[in-house]
């Protein structure tokens, strides 16, 4: 039984609440960097991806795993109680190393835009690499953030996603213990 060698949160309720609070702040201020407490995450996941998933995913949400994350599968099933799905279009949450094509996920519908997927994407690094400029609700002035590991056409994909508003995918970018959020409402350009 692989994947059970590592525990989840040391304090399941307190740690999930702290991470949830940070996620709320991060969603409200797109592109700002946040950090999670140390966690022995199952490879290939980092502490941030693992903490975000422990916080958001449970037995009543479906989770899609990119092939790159299969090594963490047993851990996710055990600690999150995640219900795995093979079909990205039915996933409430998805986790992947590197950006998957946004178009394969559910963007919600006009009656229930909240039914769209939330993607937890692990990138190479946050704070170094190409700079992106974010603007939109929650940002008084445009903000800049360097992200290493996003595909070249990411701003184009994102523009298409943003155009669906109020529908659209929300993103949580993670690297190591750091993360930032890109809700569907934000506009992104190369900085």
């Amino acid at each position: 039984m692989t994947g059970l060698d590592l525990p989840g949160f040391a304090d399941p309720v307190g740690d999930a609440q702290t991470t949830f609070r940070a996620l709320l702040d991060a969603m409200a201020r797109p592109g700002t960097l946040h950090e999670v407490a140390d966690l022995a995450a199952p490879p290939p996941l980092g502490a941030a991806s693992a903490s975000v998933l422990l916080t958001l995913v449970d037995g009543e949400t479906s989770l899609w795993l990119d092939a790159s994350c299969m090594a963490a599968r047993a851990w996710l099933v055990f600690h999150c109680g995640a219900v795995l799905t093979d079909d990205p279009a039915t996933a409430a949450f998805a986790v992947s190393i590197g950006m998957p094509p946004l178009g394969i996920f559910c963007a919600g519908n006009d009656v229930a835009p909240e039914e769209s997927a939330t993607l937890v994407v692990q990138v190479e690094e946050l704070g170094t690499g190409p700079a992106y400029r974010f603007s939109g609700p929650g940002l008084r002035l445009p903000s800049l953030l360097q992200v290493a590991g996003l595909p070249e056409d990411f701003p184009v994909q994102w523009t298409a996603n943003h155009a669906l508003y109020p529908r659209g995918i929300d993103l949580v970018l993670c690297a190591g213990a750091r993360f930032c959020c890109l809700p569907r409402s934000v506009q992104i350009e190369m900085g």
Partner: protein
Amino acid sequence: MAYVAVKGGERAIDAAHAWLAEERRGDPDVPEITIAQIGEQLGRAVDRVMAEASCYDPALASLAIKQAQGDLIEAAFLLRAYRTTLPRFAAARPIDTDAMQISRRISAIYKDLPGGQVLGPTYDYTHRLLDFRLADGAPPADDSPPASALQDMPKNGAEEGAAAGRMKPVSAILAHEGLIEEDDVADAPPGDLTREPLAFPAGRDLRLQALARGDEGFLLSLGYSTQRGWGGTHPFVGEIRVGEVAIEIDPPELGFPIEIGDIIVTECQMVNQFKGSKAAPPQFTRGYGLCFGHGERKAMAMALVDRAMRAEELGEEVIAPAQTIEFVLSHCDNIEATGFVEHLKLPHYVDFQSELETIRRLRREAEAFASQDRREAAE
């Protein structure tokens, strides 16, 4: 509807809470009741709270009863609220009531049914006379049945085996002759009204879930109404059984099912006459009742109402409240009902002011109209 935030009540509320705590405790010279005492000695109240809270935990239900001073709807509310703070680990496999460890099992349609009529701990044959010996906590008088009555039973293996082993439901006897409808064997995942808001038409899965947690008094009255002609179903008690059933879950990390303990439930199979329809021959149909704990009245009422709500499905005319699915399901939950009835206590000052204005205006207009009439009549 509008509510007004009002400040200034905090001290009054604190004082009210303090008085409530004092009143709950009562005379300090009388020993304080313990949770264990409630659990052991007020078991039927505990069972009712668990059923209506839709949360099986005798110790928590006992605590809720203590905290609510025995107000069982308030207690169910407290337990239902606590329930929402917990994650759901799993859904269990459906319980197997044939394999129940029976403590009571009776049938009103077959005297000599296989396994026999087993009375269990019942009030049915008590005389409903107040027993003043209980008031004093005195030992039972000599005329009460000796505890040994429970020991001298036939230690005959077959009899014991019947009580401990699987007991086929009475309906199986009728099913053997093909005179009763079969259970529908669809195994689709059931709807869950704690996750999805109730929508109509509601399937039998959702109806049974709502009834299982519905108010006993409401269901009792509705069940009674069907007997008095408001959607009659010609019911017979096919069988009532009370006892322990095992709870079995399939943890994904194990890959095989495990039993995690037992709970007590009450089941009622009501057998109802059915004249037949275009689609089905004349036969017996069934209403089903199942609830947490020892709740015979609840399970029977539930079975009556379940059958009544199947009127449309069986091609019967829907004419009575008990047959009207939306009416029953929208009003059977006593926690929702108490919330909406009791919210009338909240400040409605603005609402009421506007009503007052309206009434005054209508009154003025009516008076003006009347005096104009009088003038016209005088002219």
